[in-house]
């Protein structure tokens, strides 16, 4: 080709641009790691850039010795698993019957779901409902109100619909019930979709902030994001500091905040690359069918 030199320069430019953007994506996190591993004296003297200065794990030790933060982490891990399991189960329960075209009432239910994608009561009526049915300051307030995502439901329904009906028919003729078919045939064929949606639900709960801010006022039920917000923005260290509101309570240093933020980020960074392959197909199905 005549333009091969020009072509190479063009390729080089593209690689440079993408590399630059990727570095910009990573730099903030690298800086955060550097701060969390530096001594607080080094942070205060403004000498930390992208590598830790006077490397030590003191900040992480301090985070792990704060009972409030540790409890919140354990609670959030537990809550995330509970939420992802409940959400996934109810999504499966809803998605499977809706793939049956002849099911009476199917269209009614579909319309009922789609309406909620475009219109909602809004924050205050939702809050009043949670309050009126006595869920405020209960774990259930963090599980139930946003348990089922209409978007995820439509994605899973599309996925189930893509499974050839002949698989089910032979089982049905053998006398298998719908629930047997769902668990023995449909679910094993849908592992990728279920893994993706479980990840979405889990990440949603792990990152969830507003519902906790609105529904929860007891510090021992603070999920990690709310705990982190209190720590970073309100300089609140532990439950003791919150209850007493005393000025003598230790103000968290910058490297301690960085360590806490890192600890909240690590689980996501660890889980995500394994599921990347799956969620791309999940997002694409959602975009086409939803």
């Amino acid at each position, binding site marked *: 080709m005549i333009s091969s030199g020009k072509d190479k320069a063009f390729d080089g430019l593209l690689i440079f641009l993408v590399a630059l953007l990727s570095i910009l994506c990573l730099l903030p996190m690298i800086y955060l790691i550097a701060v969390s591993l530096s001594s607080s004296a080094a942070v205060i003297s403004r000498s930390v850039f992208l590598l830790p200065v006077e490397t030590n794990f003191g900040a992480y030790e301090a985070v792990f010795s704060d009972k409030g933060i540790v409890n919140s982490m354990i609670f959030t891990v537990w809550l995330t698993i509970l939420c992802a399991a409940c959400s996934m189960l109810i999504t499966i329960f809803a998605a499977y019957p809706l793939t049956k075209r002849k099911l*009476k009432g199917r269209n009614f239910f579909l319309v009922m779901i789609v309406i909620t994608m475009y219109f909602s009561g809004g*924050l205050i009526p939702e809050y009043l409902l949670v309050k009126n049915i006595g869920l405020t300051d209960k774990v259930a307030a963090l599980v139930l109100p946003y348990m089922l995502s209409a978007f995820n439901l439509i994605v899973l329904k599309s996925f189930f619909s893509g499974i050839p009906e002949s698989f089910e028919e032979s089982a049905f003729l053998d006398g298998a019930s719908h629930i047997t078919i*769902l668990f023995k045939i449909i679910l094993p064929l849908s592992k990728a979709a279920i893994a993706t949606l479980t990840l979405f639900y889990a990440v949603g709960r792990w990152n969830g902030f507003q519902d906790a801010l609105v529904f929860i006022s007891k510090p021992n039920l603070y999920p990690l994001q709310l705990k982190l917000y209190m720590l970073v923005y309100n300089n609140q260290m532990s439950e003791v500091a919150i209850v007493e509101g005393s000025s003598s309570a230790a103000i968290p240093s910058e490297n301690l905040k960085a360590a806490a933020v890192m600890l909240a980020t690590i689980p996501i960074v660890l889980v995500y690359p394994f599921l990347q392959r799956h969620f791309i197909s999940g997002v694409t199905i959602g975009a086409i069918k939803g």
Partner: protein
Amino acid sequence: MHDSLVTSTPDSRLIRSTKGKKRIQYLKNNWMLYLLLLTPFAYFVIFKYAPMYGVLIAFKDYNIFEGVWASEWNNFETFIEIFSMPDFWNAFRNTFVLNTLDLVVGFPAPIILAIILGELKIMWFKRATQTILYLPHFLSWVIIGSIALQLLAPESGLVNIVLNKIGISSIPFLNDKYLWVGTYVVLGLWQSIGWNTIIYLAAISGINPELYEAAEMDGAGRLSRIWHITLPGIRPTIVILLILAVGRMSQIGFDRPYVLSNYFVTETADVISTFVYRLGIQNFQYSIATAVGLFQSVIGLVFLLVTNYIADRLGEQGIW
């Protein structure tokens, strides 16, 4: 009476009984499907439709002890009140300004990035950078906000330390009401640019490769191939996503503006979602806050319908 006469003829009774049998047979075959639907149905009724009923308090003087139904209607006084609140219009304006900037900056950026990624030839490099670029999407706004604070703080932030080193005085990225708007938009772009390329990349990979080969034969350069093949190829995707984005213009998330904003920037940072939270949850003005939320929902619905209608008229495939 006429009805009973008809049903009493033996013929029709026969039909009824087979109908009844059919119904029993249908239920025998399908009751499990309805059983499965029971919890999702209850979920939607309780957590989605009950709050929609609760919206009625926007039209009433809501008394928490009397409940939604028994509270007195107030002849749209709530709406008259919110329309006379300067803070409401401020939040309304900020919502549209921030969303417009997000759209202008954040909508074309992933398209450009997706086209660039699509042109990359070294596969491992493409895959590795994609992994990195998608990552910020999975970080919460509390985490991003905390990182932003560490990076951008006037005294201790890395960016300002570097600026000071090269002789520029500190820039208050998060504490100046106008600079804050820029910071908000850039952080949004940082979080979403990679993730939003996914759908475009899927569309690009769906374009027939023979088109590119034919164009190359005809002597078309890289840029003209992008312009004449890639862009028209992803045009339907762009239109649908644009409709959805414009349709969401009046909706704004809560976490991002709430976490990033602070006392100094309320004038440009207070948006509908944070306004509703402050009014309703912190100040217990339930009726007024609900009315603001409802107003936003209705505007959102109108936006969605209008943009879809326009797209339809222009001959593009809408979202329905």
